[in-house]
């Protein structure tokens, strides 16, 4: 028997890690990965709450989130490729033509 809050805390930690990753990683792909991490954190809490409320809608939500994640992955990686073509780098700090 594990208290629900443990799952939630875990999800919170994962989410936080995702945000932190976005902040500190330089490689665009890695940053994108940390976004996936955030999504996973959210998913976990969905499932956990679903268990709490005995409502399957939470799990279904997770299903849709995964679809979205897939779509985002496809588009996102395509964008990353496009950027790489024009810029020959994957370092976000070097992608700063637009500023001020």
């Amino acid at each position, binding site marked *: 028997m594990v208290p629900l809050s443990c799952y939630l805390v875990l999800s919170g930690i994962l989410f936080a890690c995702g945000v932190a990753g976005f902040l500190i990683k330089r490689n665009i792909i890695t940053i994108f990965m940390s976004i996936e991490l955030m999504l996973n954190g959210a998913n976990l809490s969905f499932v956990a709450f679903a268990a709490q409320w005995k409502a399957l809608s939470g799990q279904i939500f997770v299903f849709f989130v995964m679809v979205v994640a897939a779509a985002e992955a496809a588009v996102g990686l395509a964008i990353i490729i496009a950027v790489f073509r024009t810029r020959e780098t994957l370092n976000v700090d070097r992608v700063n033509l637009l500023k*001020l």
Partner: protein
Amino acid sequence: MTPNFHLWLIPLLPLVGAAINGLFGRRFGRKLAASVGLTFSGAACAQGLWVALEFSSLGTGLYRESLAVWIHAGDLHVDFAFYLDQLSLIMLLIVSGVGFLIHIYSVGYMGKEAGLYRFFSYLNLFLFFMLTLVLASNYLLMFVGWEGVGLASYLLIGFWFTKDQAASAGKKAFIANRIGDFGFLIGLFLLIKHFGSLDFESLFASIQLRSPETQGAGLLTSIALLLMVGACGKSAQIPLYVWLPDAMEGPTPVSALIHAATMVTAGIYMIARSHLIFDRAPVAGMTVAILGTLTAFFAATIAIVQTDIKKVLAYSTISQLGYMFLACGVAAYTAGIFHLMTHAFFKGLLFLAAGAVMHATGGEQDMRAMGGLRTKIPWTFWTMTMATFAIAGIPPLAGFFSKDEILWQAYASARGSWLYWLLGVITASMTSFYMFRLWFLTFFGEYRGGRAQAHLPAQPAGPGGQAGSHNLPRVSSEHGGIHESPKVMLVPMVILAVLSVVGGWVSYHHTFENFLSPVFRGAGAASAVETRPSSSAGESPLEESGERETLFTTLSVAAAAFGFFLAWLLYHRRPELPKSIAHEILGLYHTVLHKYYVDELYAILFVNPLLKGSAKLLWRGIDQNVIDAGLDASAHATRRLSDTMRHMQSGNLRSYAGWMSLGAAAVIAYMVWTGIP
């Protein structure tokens, strides 16, 4: 039954003349312009005379005609209404009569001017305003005329506008007058505030109910003092007299009409008109008297050393006006008006004569360049002589009566004092001195005008008044030598000469006094309240004052005679003396010659600080360096702020994420804070 005088026509006629000349004059020839001017002024004069004849038929001696409502705002109600009583009748006659004469004179004097139509339309305009001033039945309408004559004199002084001195003189006159009018206005405001009306009849009716303010400061006193300020401006009294001498830049007829006979006397008229107020404000009266005396004395001293013939006359005018002020100050209004009248005659004449002299000598104004003209221009000489003797107060000419009357009243009247009298007498002797000095220098000895002739051809022949320091452009270029003036100029001079000889006789058996008495009835009543110790000394005032009067009269005549003698001695018998004397007292001499440096003083005290202050402090200082600079600074600050703020937009993705997560943290924190009770 009261006849209908149609008083409104009197001022209106000249206005029509002015309008015609002003609008269409440039298309007229000289003759037409002149005749228009003459017709309308003449018509006004004629109607004035007719009114005078009819006047006796008025039982009451009062006549009022209201034309229309002018202003009606809130509870203030002002009409276009005219008012005729003995006082205004006399003024009416003087103004229209002398005015008309001088119109005639100008035809000859200004005949060659290019802008003749302008001249006449201005003159007519002046008549319009002056007559309005005189006939007005309320203070506001009077103020209309008051300001208007100021305008007219501005225009006429600056008639030769291409001359810078003339332009400045005009401006100076107008502004000095404005300063006076400022006082006048405030006075009117007080009247409105406390009496709710400006109409003479209702106003005086309510004032009559008030008792005199013996202890100075009071409503009436302040009103009276403010009105006096206005009068000072118009009538060129200390401290506002400075404009009058400069005003001599104008054509001589103008000086004669406006700056001697009529306009400058408006102040005296106004005080006399509001005598009810002054009666009840002894302090104000005293101030008037003192100012008058001082001005009379002071101006006379300056007149002594002037060499410009017109300047001498100008200062003499100021001095004479001082006399009239003195008279009004001591509540001897009759005497004041009397002197006003006689002065109008002889001073007008003096100016005309001076004009004739200049005419003769080709525009010369410096007396040192004249002399010996007696034989060359006899008519001018004789008329001038009449006037001179009149003003010097030599009996039995007009000046003698009026001046003597004033001096006597200055001593004898309830508010008089021997000090006034003393200064008055001294002034009288000075008057006769400088007048005879002028007389001798101009007409006796031998002609010293070679210099003048020499540089006559040097005169440029542009349109009117290009003639440098000279008032009279063309004259001499046509006929070289010295010559008598044409008839058209002589006739008015002669008429005035006659008047200034016999003018005084109207006071015989107090006719003049009695005639005016209904107007000034209040004066006696008011001043009866106070009694002076001297007159309360036992014996009956009547014969006591009777013999005293004769004594004083002799004294003043003696003073005049002394002045004559001195002048004869210095400028006829031993003409080298004056220089040496001047050298004796060089400093004083120069001070006086430069009119005690009053103009310079004003410049240092008021004009320059004002200009510099507003340029440097207000405009450059506050406007540009404080307000605008402040605005620009704030705008600049905003721009810099935004410039720094946009560095938030570093273009770096991770920074953006940083900002966002910070914001998210803030939002969460806020929500948690609100959410958790």
